[in-house]
């Protein structure tokens, strides 16, 4: 996963100002901040509100609505396994189980070595499931041993 910039309010101002002239800018501004810093720092909320002339509450509402947006620093790696029907039909359940076992966490949690295990509903790889998005890269035809290998390689990358 690409390295994110460390949080800085000055840099955040630059990001937010760039978005300010866009139409309907709140969501895309939060996305831009997350793109820059890996997450939306709570201090960005008043900045976004002030710059875009909306209320802090509105920004908070948007920030908490979308599952993609997070308010704490990004993990070292993210493993997002599709748990929707098409992938279920070819055994995503077993893939999930194996990933949970490898990482020692349940879906929706972060492992001690900062790998997030998340569920996702459909990655558009429905004929080649089970699928997963690992650090932004789509993987298809996954099996439990393959997910274990993927996780192992993430760990060796971090190490």
């Amino acid at each position: 996963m690409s390295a994110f910039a460390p949080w800085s309010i000055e840099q955040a101002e630059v990001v937010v100002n760039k978005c300010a002239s866009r139409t309907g800018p709140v969501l895309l501004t939060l996305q831009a901040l997350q793109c820059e810093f890996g997450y939306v720092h709570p201090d960005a909320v008043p900045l976004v509100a002030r710059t875009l002339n909306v209320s802090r509450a509105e920004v908070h509402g948007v920030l908490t609505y979308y599952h993609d947006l997070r308010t704490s620093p990004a993990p070292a790696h993210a493993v997002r396994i599709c748990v929707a029907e098409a992938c279920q039909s070819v055994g995503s359940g077993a893939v999930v189980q194996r990933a949970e076992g490898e990482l020692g966490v349940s879906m929706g949690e972060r492992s001690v070595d900062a790998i997030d295990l998340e569920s996702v509903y459909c990655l558009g790889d429905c004929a080649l499931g089970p699928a997963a998005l690992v650090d932004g890269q789509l993987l298809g035809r996954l099996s439990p041993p393959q997910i274990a290998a993927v996780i192992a390689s993430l760990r060796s990358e971090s190490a």
Partner: protein
Amino acid sequence: MTLLHEPDFGTPERESDVTVELTVDGAAVSVPAGTSVMRAAAQAGLSVPRLCATDSLDPFGSCRLCLVEIDGRKGTPASCTTPVETGMVVHTQTPRLANLRRGVMELYISDHPLDCLTCPANGDCELQDMAGVVGLREVRYGFDGENHLDAPKDETNPYFTFDESKCIACSRCVRACEEVQGTFALTIAGRGFDSKVSPGGTSFFDSECVSCGACVQACPTATLQEKSVIDLGMPTRTVLTTCAYCGVGCSFKAELRGDELVRMVPFKDGGANEGHSCVKGRFAWGYATHRDRVTEPMVRESIHDEWRVVEWDEAFEFAASRIKSIQAEYGTDAVGGITSSRCTNEEVFVVQKLVRAAFGNNNVDTCARVCHSPTGYGLKQTFGTSAGTQDFKSVEKTDVILLIGANPTDAHPVFASRMKRRLRAGAQLIVLDPRRIDLVRSPHVEAAFHLPLQPGSNVAVVNALAHTIVAEGLVDREFVAQRCEPAAYAVWEKFILRPENSPEAVASIAGVEADDIRSAARLFAAAGNGAIYYGLGVTEHSQGSTMVMGMANLAMATGNIGRDGVGVNPLRGQNNVQGSCDMGSFPHELPGYRHVSDDVVRQQFEEVWGRTLQSEPGLRIPNMLEGALSGQFRALYVQGEDIAQSDPNTTHVKAALSAMDLVIVQDLFLNETSSFAHVFLPGTSFLEKAGTFTNAERRINRVRPVMSSRTGLSEWQVTAALANALGYPMHYDSASEIMDEIAGLTPTFAGVSFAKLDEVGSVQWPCNEGQPDGTPIMHVDQFVRGLGNFVETPYVATDERTTRRYPLILTTGRILSQYNVGAQTRRTENIRWVDEDVLEMHEADAEPRGIADGSWVFLTSRVGETTLRCVITDRVPPGVVYTTFHFPVTGANVITTEYSDWATNCPEYKVTAVEIRTASQNHVARGGQLAAVDQDGVSIDDLLDGETLAIKEEFAHERADVKLARMLDQIVKNSVGLTPEDQVERVARHLRGFWTPAMVDELAQAVSTGAVTLSPPAAAAVAELTAGAPSAAS
């Protein structure tokens, strides 16, 4: 009256020329196109179950209780979001719908505490009601599923709690905050089952919430609940009354439990507020029962004595005997009275009657002197009546709002909400204000132009706006030709086209870009409907009256008078500024703005009152104070105004008060002024009064007693008793009788009576035979004075200039949570938000002075100084500093000077040259006292250099005749004419209309002794007035 439940039609009313006919449950209904099926059903008397719908909010369609069946349509559409169509056949009650509704309620209750019997909303809960309405008998899901029952309570707001466990996520609070209040402080956080109302991820107290109560009002459950209801229980009866804070004049349902007030709920049928409120009106009423209330009369021989509690009769006798002896010794004119814009019309009426009939002079003035007297003067000169032209609702039809010297979101919050709604719907806004007020930019509102003009340059800018409009051919020629005096227009056009009125010439004076002035002028001129709204930032200047006329000129030139969406609209500071002026509180006018010199009018009053009345103007407040210092004015009756805190140059005010033999203060609390009083007559709060208030839109609203008088008497009874003690018989059985007398004597009030108001709710004057239902919009077909009068408005710079010693300009204003001198709001939980006045200052001014954000500073003008905390902000431009005057500890008015409007003497609060320097908290000037001493015994004066003190000394003791000459000089400068003779005539007319003969005489005397020198026109005018009089001859 039992608890008043107002009908709720579920969705807002729609306007349409097209009527749609449909059938609901067999009943034929006709409604305007665009109406919802729900509202149509409600109009047919059929109530469709609902939780998320209420007629103050746009339909939302979330609860799904209001589903109906419509013949020929699939499914079960929600009646709130389905518009009616011709021929529709709607069924609101079918077995299918009954099942669905029970199903919805079953879901709600599966995630709701089962504590109805101990819930504060028990009996006032729509969720509870709906469970009954749909016949919910069991919750088959059980209660052990996932739920929110353990959600924490937020009790941080002083007035209401947020109990999330009871929230049904209907979003009514969120929508009320957006649609009604316009603050957007609430949201739904999360989504799906985790959706919850949130003030933005923080506590209510730390959020953007302005505590207007709209969310509490909208909540159908006990989720958002008044703490007073939690503490005291559900109210059992309602008294309809009117708020006593600002000039919006909101109607409230005072809800009581027995005789105890439980809560104030904004009244939907209230014309001014239509169901909305602000933090002050809705919640900050606790001062009425505050322990500081004085409820018994008190007297003392000298202001150095302790107060002595006495019986009412003794107090009246004490006061009356002193007044009589003073008048015997110093003459009839040595006493006077001040009416209060916080009191009812009836109370004000009897006070001015007391002065005119019992004191026998016209020395009556009002606190409106220090706020909106220029409005009265300016609009009378141009339009012919001293009042705003529109109703509040008019703003909903406005395309461009020109907002000048007003900060509605803080000072008139309920009207501000209406304005913001219109702005969100697409109207444009131009703000003329030195300070970047919230409306310049706040969530979902952004002004097209903000002209941060230098304080004192209003007239220059309004002239430049008009100049642009005339020069660029943007005048509404047709309107001007049909509705205005042609000669006056021609003179004005010539005047306004002068080069000194061009934006380019004005730019440097005002510190505003010429292009911005031009663009703003074009925007305003191009508006279909352009409306001007203004506040004390217009009036409280040495040219306040000129500015009012300048705005009136602008409105006429652009054809923006006489219909919905336009007009010149003063935002009145206090609840009854309009009313107190209407009631004859000014020394030159009898009730209804008729000059005391009008023999016909005066005779009518003389007949009814049984006394001969003076035909010449009496003293204004500043004249009274001057007179006190010179020994001619000896006694003052002040009702409901704290002039020692609110009037300018309080050092001077206090000196004048100290010099009087008798000061009678009638108020709720001992205040700054009562420190100088000999008689204290306890007053009643609005919750104890019967009467009427007249708001900024001329709306006369009933004030009804919610609780019994804490003092045992009403103010008008006290005034009447004082009159009787003075030997003038005055008797009324009720406030209603007083209004009958007002109506009998005042043509614009002829149709007003308590009975009428009780029947129709409220009326806007004029209300008489010609306008039996009142007059929402004035000057529709013609101006009150016939043709509109353009008046030349030359820009004359104030004498208050920045100097090397006082290089900054101080301007003052209000904040949301506090009100005026704070007598009421400081005695409520509102102090939780703000408990001190602070000085706003730009970084560019703070930095070179070594002043840090939050540090203590000395604020010094040539008349006084105080100490307060500094906030560094870019809300104010460099060179301008800003503060409020809510707290006596600051005593900000110790700083302001006695410079005043040339026409009305309204003080120039908005422009004071000052200097700021760092201080320590130990040097706090308590109560604004000059001699405040720090811990080491060093006075603040000790910290200032000798020269500063000398200058202060000089101004503090400006000679009375010099002062009069200076005032006359201002009148001359503002009364330009075509010819020298013309100008002299104008000045003379002004003096005749507003000055007492004694003042003119004093000036003539000074001229003759060579003590002062006047300019030729001034001298000529004085000579004209004194021709034949002994003083002129000598």
